[in-house]
């Protein structure tokens, strides 16, 4: 097996007596789509925060591309190719969809301490941004102020922004949350197109989507990883079934 792109070693985060993630160890292989599932309150979002650097871990370490990034801030991790999206839509509502993405391109290309020249006219930023929007299926909506986009479109926009940071690995925090059926289909299609071209860690509640997309699945229960395996074997795992009992129907 190749060296993992992302490796978590014994990550832990607690708020007072409440332990949210506990001794989480995980390895994500280059190119795979690795889903993390778990019942509500299992600590999935906290884990994403720890990986992306939004939250400091109490102990344990995060290795990315073979290097320890535990002490780096979020922007520094982004600089190394570790990008994320947010569960609650997090875009710049006053900016057009294109500008949202162009900003992400800008972060990767050249200094942003430039005080002259109209950034919104820079072809070198707008062209790649447009590509990303098209990949995310939003090309036609590029010039709409993003605050006016539909909820599903905002999720697609988040994906496009994530792509524009040219990540090696994309952390997606419930990209389907709150979308309607058609919208969620569109996002799933986009993910399917991206799959294989870059490594993706996906946190998602929609089991149908997870099991159709993921190469491997890790199950988080009460802050601990209880199993990591292929979708088929996870579905058969009795421990996982027990954890989900009464929570929601396994597909």
């Amino acid at each position, binding site marked *: 097996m190749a060296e993992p792109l992302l490796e978590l070693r014994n990550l832990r985060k607690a708020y007072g007596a409440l332990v949210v993630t506990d001794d989480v160890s995980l390895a994500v292989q280059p190119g795979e789509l690795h889903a993390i599932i778990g019942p509500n309150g299992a600590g999935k979002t906290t884990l994403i925060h720890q990986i992306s650097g939004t939250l400091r871990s109490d102990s344990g370490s995060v290795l990315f591309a073979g290097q320890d990034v535990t002490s780096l801030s979020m922007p520094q991790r*982004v600089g190394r190719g570790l990008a994320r999206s947010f569960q609650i839509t997090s875009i710049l509502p006053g900016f057009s969809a294109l500008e949202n993405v162009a900003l992400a391109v800008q972060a990767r290309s050249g200094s942003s301490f430039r*005080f002259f020249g*109209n*950034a919104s*006219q820079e072809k070198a930023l707008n062209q790649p941004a447009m590509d990303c929007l098209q990949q995310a299926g939003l090309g036609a909506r590029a010039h709409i102020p993003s605050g006016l986009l539909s909820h599903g479109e905002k999720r697609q926009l988040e994906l496009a922004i994530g792509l524009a940071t040219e990540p090696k690995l994309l952390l997606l925090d419930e990209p389907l949350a709150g979308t309607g059926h058609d919208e969620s289909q569109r996002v799933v299609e986009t993910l399917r197109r991206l799959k294989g071209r870059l490594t993706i860690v996906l946190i998602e509640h929609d089991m149908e989507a997870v099991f159709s997309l993921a190469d491997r699945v890790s199950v988080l229960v009460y802050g601990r990883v209880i199993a990591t395996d292929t979708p088929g074997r996870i579905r058969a795992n009795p421990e996982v079934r027990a954890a989900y009992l009464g929570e929601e129907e396994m597909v």
Partner: protein
Amino acid sequence: MTELADTASAPAPSLSTRFEVVPIVLFAAFAAAPLFATYSGAEGYVLSLLTRVMIFGIAAMALDLILGYGALVSFGHAAFLGIGGYAVGILATHGIEDALIQIPVALVASALFALVTGAISLRTKGVYFIMITLAFGQMLYFLATSLAAYGGDDGMTLSSRSLVAGSRILKSDFAFYWMCLICLLGAYAFSRSVVASRFGRVLRGTRENAIRMEAIGFQPFRFQLAAYVISGMMAGLAGCLLANQAEFVSPAFMTWQRSGELIFMVVLGGLGSLHGAIIGAAAFLLLEEFLPEILHGVSFFLAEETRAHLAENWKMVFGPLLILIVLFVRGGIMGLLRRPRHG
């Protein structure tokens, strides 16, 4: 990021090259004013008043750069007026009267002060940021009042306006007026450029959603700090001009009330619109200057004594006027100007 971010309604600047009426009319009016001033027969007064408007326009615009585009409410910006003013005053008392030295010194001093206080203040957010900038402003104010060698609380009179490359050209009110107009235009053009630039886009993005900016790889702190320094330097320039306009420098330049007035000018004009800040400064200063007379004028049907009373108590009208503007004119004066176009 600050509590203001989610509600601040400043629109992204129009990035199209659309013909913009307001700034053109505004600057044309400033350019034409000297003619009018001559005609009025009170040119020194009219020029002096309009020069003040332009100087405070620069300061308000400087504040708008971080307040309107960065949601950073600095409640200590008058400190930079003081730094600029004292740079001129202190250098002049030591025989260095040339603006070509004074202004760079003022800019460097403003930048240093902004760098140090900004680096500390930006650790905090929202109201805490407002108050910590106030704290630094107050510290500088009290420092100035204790400078006995430079007049302490009374301040000091400049023996003359600054020289420019050894020439006494600024002695003429007209020349000084043009210099201020050039500074205003320069500051405006520079600010427009900054706002639309890569840097400005990051700043605006940070105002809307700092977490998102971090998630695409920006460190907001560095951009906010740089913006704070730029803004401080612009306000420092305004301070140099203000000292020359009044031919006088004193700690009164940097009271917290003055910082508050700068905020009002920006909000009055309309947040996040650079020429709005200039218009806000103009509206504020001209109201301050003429409201007593306007009140005296419109109350012609009352007894003279009552009219004098009314004019003296003009703040009793100015206060409610501010309240009404806030309640009924969203987005300041620029909001008012923009409204018909939108709909």
